[in-house]
């Protein structure tokens, strides 16, 4: 676990117009923060900067106070697509971050197999990603992300490609698994319900260039049951968020 901070961050691709301006955010130990914003707003760009894949024109990224701006290999990053390599078995996909860290194959597989049960993909270790359902692929990608490092995780729309039923099953599963794994997590989504159900805090990203416009604390005990979405309190949160989301000029 660790604290992630982003300070005064401004970014533009190739010195064109700014995509992100003056972003400040803090994710505390074990907290799950949701980043909610319109399509094309710059959410993935922000993740790429935190992951060290892009360098900001201004500002810094800190983990536990240490400046990691522009450094790769410091946070777990799950990209928008599941990104399982089609030519590796499920277990060898999940083992990838461990192999990259220099662990030998046998040891890495052993660690993977010690975790597949908990992530609900036991028995599928030897299959190829194409043989898995969307939900299972997402679980495998999450386990890979988790095995890289349990400190800070960036999840870019991990469930958005799933159908509604699979998605809500995944939410239940995710709340369950995360109860025991307290990662500091930033989670991107378009889905307001998902954001309220899963997160401790929701940050709204809006405008052009994008800034963080609002913060909504979801002050509900965890673990949350999936019935939470049917309560009045849930609807109050939802109303507040929707009133604050700036619709893009259609």
């Amino acid at each position: 676990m660790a604290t992630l901070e982003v300070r005064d961050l401004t970014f533009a691709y190739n010195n064109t117009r700014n995509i992100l301006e003056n972003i400040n955010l803090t994710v505390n130990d074990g907290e799950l923060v949701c980043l909610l914003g319109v399509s094309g707003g710059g959410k993935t760009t922000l993740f790429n900067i935190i992951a060290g894949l892009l360098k900001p024109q201004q500002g810094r990224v800190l983990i536990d106070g240490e400046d990691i701006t522009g450094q790769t290999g410091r946070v777990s990053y799950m990209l928008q697509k599941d990104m399982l390599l089609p030519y590796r078995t499920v277990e060898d996909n999940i083992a990838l971050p461990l192999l990259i860290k220099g662990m030998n194959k046998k040891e890495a597989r052993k660690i993977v197999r010690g975790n597949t049960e908990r992530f609900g993909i036991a028995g599928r270790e030897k299959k190829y990603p194409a043989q898995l359902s969307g939900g299972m692929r997402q679980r495998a990608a999450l386990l890979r992300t988790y095995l890289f490092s349990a400190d800070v995780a960036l999840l870019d729309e991990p469930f958005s490609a799933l159908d509604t039923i699979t998605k809500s099953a995944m939410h239940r599963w995710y709340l369950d698994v995360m109860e025991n794994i307290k990662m500091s997590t930033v989670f991107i989504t378009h889905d307001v319900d998902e954001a309220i159900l899963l997160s401790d805090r929701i940050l709204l990203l809006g405008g052009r260039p994008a800034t963080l416009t609002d913060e909504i604390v979801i002050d509900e005990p965890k673990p949350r049951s999936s019935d939470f979405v049917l309560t009045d309190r849930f609807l109050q949160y939802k109303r507040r968020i929707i009133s604050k989301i700036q619709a893009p000029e259609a």
Partner: protein
Amino acid sequence: MSARLRSTISKAAFPVAALVLLFAAWQLICTVGNIPKYMLPSPADVFAAFKADWRLMLSHAKVTLLETFIGLFFGILIGFLMAVVMDRFSVIRKMIYPLVVISQTIPTVAIAPLLVIWMGYQMLPKIVLIILVVFFPITISLLEGFSSVDADTVNLMRSMGASRMQIFRYVKLPNSLGQFFSSLKISVSYAVVSAVVSEWIGGTEGLGCYMTRVRKSFSSDKMFAVIILISVLSLILIWLTTVLQHACMPWEKVNSEQKR
């Protein structure tokens, strides 16, 4: 009988039938037309020639195959190294790539005699010719495979702190295997033909030399027999390449079955 075996057999039935018909027609033309053997030997003549001379043919085939394997080995090695270097340094790619393409417009038949003049009548000029023929498709296909990797997959690897070598090993190399094997299948048959062509020009051993000798003695039946032998050898090599491909890419079968 498994479904797979049955479908293979039914697929093979058509070309086999066509081949049988072709041979029958050929035999008929020779027998009925009373065509002299040195002009067009009948299938029966060709078979008899092979039966009479197969030991000698196979001992020549051994030499040709040896040249082919050595040439393929170094051709693949050089093609691989060139692709890696050109992928890593774009300056080198820009410098060499056009030259490599231009070099391919030079007909191999034209340089084979030069190679013999420079390197003598032994195996070396034959192997060099095969290398020259083979490395190009290998380089191009690997380069294509290396550079067609998904940018986000590379980003994922980088986010995990992967080094250039690790990205190469875990992403670029497996990504290029499909294209590599497609071009290898073409390369192996080119390699056999190149070995034979360079043996025509100089040397004392190999199927090409055997061809030159039987041509000089107007033994068309033996000529046909050795041509058929050469194409059978090529087919076997292509088949071996396919077997190797399946062994190297076990996911291919699974993924293609999944797509259906």
